[in-house]
């Protein structure tokens, strides 16, 4: 933001461009500008540096949420806890499964990764390598096996072997493919039949380069997979991932984790204040 300069129309125009270029979209940018004008008025901010700080506050507040990624309570008999990883093709699901698995293992938890993507070339091989890197148990499958049966088998195994947490990787799918969304719905129902509702966390993995289509993704995936939160990946690139602000505004769905690279340690819990600073930086 510019140095000591008046908070005038040209400032708001500049901010509008900055906001839209983060991918939050025209409408949400307008809403943010409205909130900013109100704050500027209320606080009597008279220079752009102060207005920019207020903007960071406004966005940080909008994004903040008490929801966190599930951590199993090892003293609870309610085992296992299940994390369901969903999202469109190439968003980063398989990689996130590996990253999360290692984090849970380091907490001393017994982790099982379930490979329900039985369709894409070398998908099971890829996830198996991540399970080996994370040093956790792996429930593989035959290519072409029914995803829901793989999930069913994985959950039965987890219950009998006493795993604390099961991470289910699913195949990438576009939300306008009815048969693939039905398949995901069936996977969710398979989990529901075996696991208590508050022991399930269903996550949508969104690539931070994604534009307005991520809103539709969140809506449609939400209908079949009952989403609890978002994992925003590839934030180590040039994209800002601002679409998550639109999703939070429209649907209340929070970001829980951020992917910041391709190695197993590159996953950090979402920090709304830090993210909104970097959004405008």
């Amino acid at each position, binding site marked *: 933001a510019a140095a000591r300069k008046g908070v005038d129309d040209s400032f708001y125009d500049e901010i509008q461009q900055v906001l839209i270029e983060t991918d939050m*979209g025209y409408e949400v940018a307008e809403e943010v500008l409205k909130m900013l004008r109100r704050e500027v008025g209320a606080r009597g901010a008279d220079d752009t540096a102060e207005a920019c700080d207020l903007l960071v506050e406004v966005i940080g507040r909008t994004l903040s949420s008490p929801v966190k990624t599930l951590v199993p309570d090892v003293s609870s008999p309610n085992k296992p806890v299940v994390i369901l990883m969903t999202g469109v093709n190439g968003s980063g699901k398989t990689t996130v499964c590996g990253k999360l698995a290692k984090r849970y293992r380091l907490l001393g938890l017994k982790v099982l990764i379930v490979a329900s993507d039985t369709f894409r*070339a*070398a998908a099971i091989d890829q996830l198996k390598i991540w399970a080996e890197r994370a040093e956790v148990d792996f429930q593989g499958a035959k290519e072409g096996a029914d995803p829901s049966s793989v999930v069913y088998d994985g959950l039965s195994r987890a219950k009998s072997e006493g795993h604390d947490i099961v991470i289910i990787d699913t195949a990438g799918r576009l939300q306008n493919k009815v048969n693939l969304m039905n398949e995901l719905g069936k996977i969710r129902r398979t989990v529901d039949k075996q696991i208590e509702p508050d022991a399930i966390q269903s996550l949508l993995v969104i690539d931070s*380069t*994604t534009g307005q*289509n991520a809103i539709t993704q969140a809506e449609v995936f939400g209908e079949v997979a009952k989403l609890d939160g978002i994992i925003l990946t*590839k934030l180590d690139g040039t994209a800002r991932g601002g679409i998550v602000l639109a999703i939070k505004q429209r649907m209340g769905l929070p970001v829980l984790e951020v992917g910041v690279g391709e190695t197993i340690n590159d996953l950090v819990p979402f920090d709304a204040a830090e993210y909104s600073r970097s959004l405008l930086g």
Partner: protein
Amino acid sequence: RLTETLQTAFKKLRGKGLLNEKAVDEGLREIRRALLDADVNFKVAKKFTDNIRERAVGEEVMKSLTPGQQLIKIVRDELVHLLGDTAVEPNVEKGRMNQFLLLGLQGSGKTTACAKLALNYKKDGYRPLLVPLDVYRPAAIKQLEVVGSQAGVDVFKIEEGGIPLEIMRQAYQFAKDKGYSLVIYDTAGRTTVDDEMMNEVIGLRKELQFEEVFLVIDSMTGQDAVTTATKFNESVGITGCILTKLDGDARGGAALSVRDVTGVPIIFASVGEGLKQLEPFHPDRMAGRILG
């Protein structure tokens, strides 16, 4: 829908005998909003509406009984024109060894696109060879081998953990010796701010003569399409684009952004996960899709 929005807006203003430049400017603002909703980059959308303003305030809109429709027609024609007017043939010829290099961000669809291209040209009578240069992603080599075998084409055999530049040199020699007519090199996904990885792909690009260097772009990409395309084009130099996942419902404004900032044609559209699902890119179809 954009046409109805504009017709309604113009009807209101015309009813008061007020169809004038001010009204058209409001129409252009609506169009800019529609382009932004379609993921066209902010600066590209502004430049677009600025460029059509002269025609927009001309007689064809002002004197029309359906000014909204007229304005949309101007927008659509300009979109088609900016996207390249017609489908473009890639630079491939029989009687020589053609080489394609595919690059782009992580997860954009490169490995799948390599196999699709191989299948496509195998049908045209070429003898393709796929070369895996992604030595980083777990099971990336295996993935290319699987899709290569699904396409019924050869994949250059490499061991895990090689060096991309050396693999490229060995593969090139192998392809020459065995008489392949199309060599397609798959590279690792990379971000444009990773200097080491950008230097790697710059080195690969400089090593050989490529008939096409394809930037593979996900059609659901938002504002970042400009930054990414510019960086790849300026640092590496691309000759064409492949737009992927067009079987989704993203409007695909990234197509306009990429074409606008690089001047490079979008040559192929990937329209599904299956290897047969590759088509020539059609500017007129894309224009309609962007306008929604």
